[in-house]
């Protein structure tokens, strides 16, 4: 019990004193996972919309792939990205292994199927007549996508939350492709693993608490937007 209490006290001290290393790690986590989430939206929303709106041969296979991708094990992603990015690997000349960029790539691979899958699901709940109406009044394809996104923005927010939640809490792939290098690629999850192994439970708990707080703050913010919207949402007439 001492351990837990001491750990929490030490954790609070670390968080309040503004320990530069802890905050640098926090900032890196936010940066990597934030960028990865944004890129996943850019890739996942069009793909999800495409799968929801267009019928073509092989579609059901692709849909199954996306659905499988929603549960992609991060360590498997880490392994494949590592094999690609090692200097002895096919894309080694890019010198991306053990960089933030490599971590972003891995997290995009993890998050974009989640975003695509949820986008597809949310588009399929829209009234199909809406699309015909929009096309009828002369909407171009990008305009159509944008307008449908606006209609489906509440479930889309859930996709953002799921994508971000998936990558900020993920440890397997960032550990492998980032290397957990102190001051360079160490993020909240990998630092928590290391500090636990090293027996620095105070620091580990502090990092864990920050991770939870971050996750909560982002979800709280998005939920606020979502719920506020819900109230103003005009009743179908």
């Amino acid at each position, binding site marked *: 019990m001492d351990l837990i209490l001491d750990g929490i006290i030490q954790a609070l001290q670390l968080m309040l004193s503004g320990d530069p290393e802890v905050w640098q790690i926090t900032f890196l986590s936010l*940066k990597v996972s*934030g*960028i990865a989430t*944004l*890129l996943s939206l*850019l890739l996942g929303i069009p793909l999800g919309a495409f799968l929801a709106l267009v019928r073509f041969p092989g579609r059901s296979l692709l849909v199954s792939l996306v659905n499988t991708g929603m549960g992609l094990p991060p360590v498997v992603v880490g392994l494949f990205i590592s094999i690609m990015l*090692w*200097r*002895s690997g096919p894309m*080694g*000349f890019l*010198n991306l*292994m*053990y*960089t*933030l*960029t490599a971590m*972003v790539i891995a997290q995009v691979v993890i998050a974009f199927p989640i975003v695509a899958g949820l986008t597809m699901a949310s588009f399929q709940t829209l009234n199909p007549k809406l699309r015909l109406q929009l096309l009828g009044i002369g909407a171009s394809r990008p305009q159509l996508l*944008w307008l449908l996104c*606006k209609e489906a*923005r509440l479930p889309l927010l859930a996709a953002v939350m799921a994508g971000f939640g998936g990558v900020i809490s993920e440890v397997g792939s960032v550990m492998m492709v980032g*290397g*957990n*290098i*102190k001051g*360079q690629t160490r993020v909240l999850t990998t630092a928590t693993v*290391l500090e*636990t*192994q*090293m*027996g*620095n*439970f105070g620091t580990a708990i502090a990092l864990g608490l920050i991770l939870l707080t971050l996750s909560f703050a982002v979800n709280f913010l998005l939920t606020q937007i979502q719920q506020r919207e819900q109230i*103003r949402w*005009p009743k179908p007439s």
Partner: protein
Amino acid sequence: MRRHTLPSGALAVLMFILTFPLNSWTGEPVNKIIILATTTSTRDSGLLDILIPVYHKETGYIVKTIAVGTGKALAMGKRGDADVLMTHAPTSEMQLVKEGWLTHRTQFMHNDFVIIGPAADTAEVRHASDAAGALKQIAEARAGFVSRGDNSGTHKNERTLWKTARLAPQGSWYIETGQGMGATLRIASEKNAYTLTDRATFLNLQKTLASRILFEGDPLLLNKYSVMLVNPARHSWVNAEGAKSFHSWVLSDEARNIIADYGKDRFGQPLFFLDPIR
């Protein structure tokens, strides 16, 4: 319906701002980067956290320290996925030097392995005559032994000891973690089991572990660290210049002073001992 939400143009600008400075912000010009593949014990002992920043400050090189087991570190060196290695498995290292994958192997420091275990010491390892005998007692008592199981330098040394004891450990009492020294020590402590560890990592983590040093001092327990270069003739992409710079800095008086003093203030004894450079 109210018009709002982020227009796509703003989103694109945001993306650009966020992604553009990714590499420049982390200061990662390619030729300034050295990948150091090393054993977990040099990191878990805390030594590299002291050495690397000093080196960076003096030379501007950014060292990417990948702390893995020695087996994996040597494999990274062989494949050219690292520039410089710091490991502790003399036989395997010399083999790779002989085959031409690595060059300039220099043993520069040592410490020793110790056998640690529960204070109760049910296998009476304390009274063992030598290290192999200690392992034999653990095996006979089926007392619980946690092995790194990761082909690391420590694991290689452990296997040498089992071989010396003419035993092939197996059974539910013999656990392989496949993890680094820190993680393995924690598991041994939690399970009241024995394990082989380098002294530096153990001392660094001791205050959070229930284990005690039970056996030490056998010449077979000597733990020799060497630094070596990945042969750029085998892999054109290796940062040979950076690797050479790091290699010679580790052997410099400045680094040697840091190594010799490391641990004195916290543990009352140094964690590593310098070897004469030949």
